[in-house]
């Protein structure tokens, strides 16, 4: 699950959302808490102002110390009266008030004063007041200039209750936002991932045999277009390779079918009854011919297979192509009295790093082809020249030429211009494919040009040393 991009994206976005939410909700909670405490503080300050005239009257007006019940009836609506009323109801309001005289002795106590309450030590400086939280209560301590210390307190329990409710509330909000975020993120990620999934599906379909299918580039997002393009190209290449391989096996089996058919037909026909020695001999000869054709075929196939990974096997050395080709031209010219081979070397030495034997094999193959197609008496031209950093080798005949529609297929395996000619000449249609393989392994190129009726020219280009 955690290897899925979808889940990873989802996890990251949930983490981010949770972090942002935590900060925001914590901030909100703190502000709320401060606000509530500030309210309490304000109430305490107000209460202090109200109780001050009662608990710690200014010294000038200080009446002789009396018990509270002995106080004269205060003036209606005067601050003392208000203070008195307040103190009477102090328990209802959850306040408590305490006062200590300058000597530190308890002077007054109103409301539900906590049992452990003592004179703050040290008290605030004279004339100052300090507000603080102590054991769940908020307490305002005022040190009057005359040394009296007054404490007004209020339990924070109601504030804590409100805060607890706020916490639950915020938690609920947080969870709701997370749930919404999860669902939304899921939908968005699913949407974003859809092209990827589609590409995957298409690739799977191609893998399972629908080789003609390709990834639709039109609806792929720009970011995926490159990947889709590359994939499509890869599929094309694979497809080509499969096609070539298929055609090769089909061709190879097809090429072998005819000689096998000869062997079977000849022997089955011969075995139907007793025959004369001559008849048996004829059958054996036909079988031998078929066998030899299969042998040629098998050798060519092996050779072709070797050419395909020839790079590692090339025995390269520095050769003058003029010398190499001259040897080939003279030795192949001996094969035929009817076709003179005209050899024309380049004006300068053409040094190249090549496998001399292989290059001679290619040249011999081209000359032999030319000999086959040349009309009697017409010379075959083998010509070398330098062209920049490359050597050009031309082998030309004056034969019937090759029809333009055949030229593109000339270097393909088993391709024959005349479908039956090779049966007389013993070729398998692999010679030019092998030649191409060898030349390309040397980093060169081979090309053909032909005009029907005017002959055919093969041109090999090899890089010079």
């Amino acid at each position, binding site marked *: 699950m955690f290897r899925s991009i979808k889940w990873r994206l989802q996890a990251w976005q949930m983490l981010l959302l949770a972090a942002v939410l935590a900060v925001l909700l914590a901030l909100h909670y703190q502000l709320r808490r401060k606000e509530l405490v500030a309210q309490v503080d304000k109430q305490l300050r107000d209460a202090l102002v109200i109780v001050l005239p009662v608990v710690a009257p200014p010294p000038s007006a200080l009446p002789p110390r009396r018990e509270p019940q002995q106080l004269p009836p205060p003036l209606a609506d005067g601050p003392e009266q208000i203070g008195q009323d307040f103190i009477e109801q102090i328990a209802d309001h959850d306040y408590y008030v305490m006062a200590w005289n300058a000597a530190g002795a308890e002077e007054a106590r109103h409301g539900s004063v906590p049992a452990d309450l003592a004179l703050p030590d040290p008290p605030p400086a004279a004339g100052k007041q300090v507000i603080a939280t102590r054991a769940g209560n908020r307490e305002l301590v005022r040190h009057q200039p005359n040394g009296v210390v007054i404490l007004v307190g209020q339990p924070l329990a109601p504030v804590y209750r409100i805060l607890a409710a706020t916490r639950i509330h915020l938690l609920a909000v947080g969870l709701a936002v997370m749930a919404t975020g999860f669902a939304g993120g899921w939908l968005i990620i699913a949407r974003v991932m859809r092209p990827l999934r589609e590409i995957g599906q298409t690739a799977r379909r191609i893998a399972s045999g629908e080789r003609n299918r390709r990834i639709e580039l039109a609806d792929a997002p720009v970011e995926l277009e490159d990947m889709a393009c590359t994939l499509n190209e890869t599929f094309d290449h694979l497809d080509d390779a499969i096609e070539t391989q298929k055609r090769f096996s*089909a061709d190879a089996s097809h090429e072998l079918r005819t000689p096998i*058919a000869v062997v*079977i037909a000849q022997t089955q026909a*011969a075995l139907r009854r007793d025959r004369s020695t001559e008849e048996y001999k004829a059958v054996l000869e036909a079988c031998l011919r078929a066998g030899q054709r299969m042998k040629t075929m098998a050798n060519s196939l092996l050779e072709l297979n070797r050419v395909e990974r020839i790079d590692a096997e090339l025995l390269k050395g520095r050769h003058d192509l003029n010398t190499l080709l001259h040897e080939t031209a003279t030795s192949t010219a001996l094969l035929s009295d009817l076709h003179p081979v005209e050899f024309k070397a380049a004006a300068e030495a053409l040094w190249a790093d090549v496998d001399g034997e292989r290059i001679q094999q290619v040249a011999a193959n081209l000359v032999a082809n030319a000999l086959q197609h040349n009309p009697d008496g017409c010379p075959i031209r083998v010509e070398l020249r330098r062209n920049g950093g490359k050597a050009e080798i031309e082998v030309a005949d004056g034969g019937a030429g090759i029809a333009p529609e055949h030229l593109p297929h000339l270097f393909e395996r088993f391709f024959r211009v005349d479908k*039956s000619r090779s*049966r007389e000449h013993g070729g398998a249609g692999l010679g030019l494919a092998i030649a191409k393989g060898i030349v390309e392994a040397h980093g060169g190129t081979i090309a053909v040009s032909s005009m029907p009726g005017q002959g055919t020219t093969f041109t090999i280009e090899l890089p010079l040393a």
Partner: protein
Amino acid sequence: MRLLIVEDESDLRLALSMALAEEGYALDTAEDGREGLYKALNWDYDAIILDLMMPEMDGWEMLERLRKEKHTPVLVLTARGELDDRVRGLDLGSDDFLVKPFEMEELSARLRAIIRRAAGKSTSVLYLRNLEVDTARKTVRVGGKPIALTAMEYALIEYLMMHCGKVVTRIDLYEHLFDEQDDSLSNVLDVHVCNLRRKLGIDCIRTRRGHGYILER
């Protein structure tokens, strides 16, 4: 029955000729499509065995051009056995298809099948009253009793049976029972007919003077 074998591979052509001649067919051969088409258009063969990959004119083209003029049964031989090729061959008008390498037995059987299909018969054994001709085994029985016939006599009765109820001219018989190597004189045919009548012991082969012979139903 007279066949045309169009095949450029000489060893295969020879093997087919040998085997089929021994089965009693009259045989002509051609080395390429051009020669094959010429012969196929000029003689009425009972069947043509046609290779597809040939020089000059390949089997496809020959078949296409032949079908514009004639309906001779054609058995196509090919080294390519792919579905596309088989479909194309059948669509172009070949009657059957055999992929190389093939068994001679199968070739013979398919050949017999396309010949009798062209004659409108569905099985290899042909009956006429108490006469029974087995084209697969090349045997003839009269009233269940086997009759020994020469190859030519058998070929004659088989051809007449295939065209039973119809007048078969002497030219037809020459065309279908002798190949281009034979130069039999016309009275030889009468000798074979005469011998056949004697051996079968039934007067089923009637002479239509000036026309030819007929095997009456």
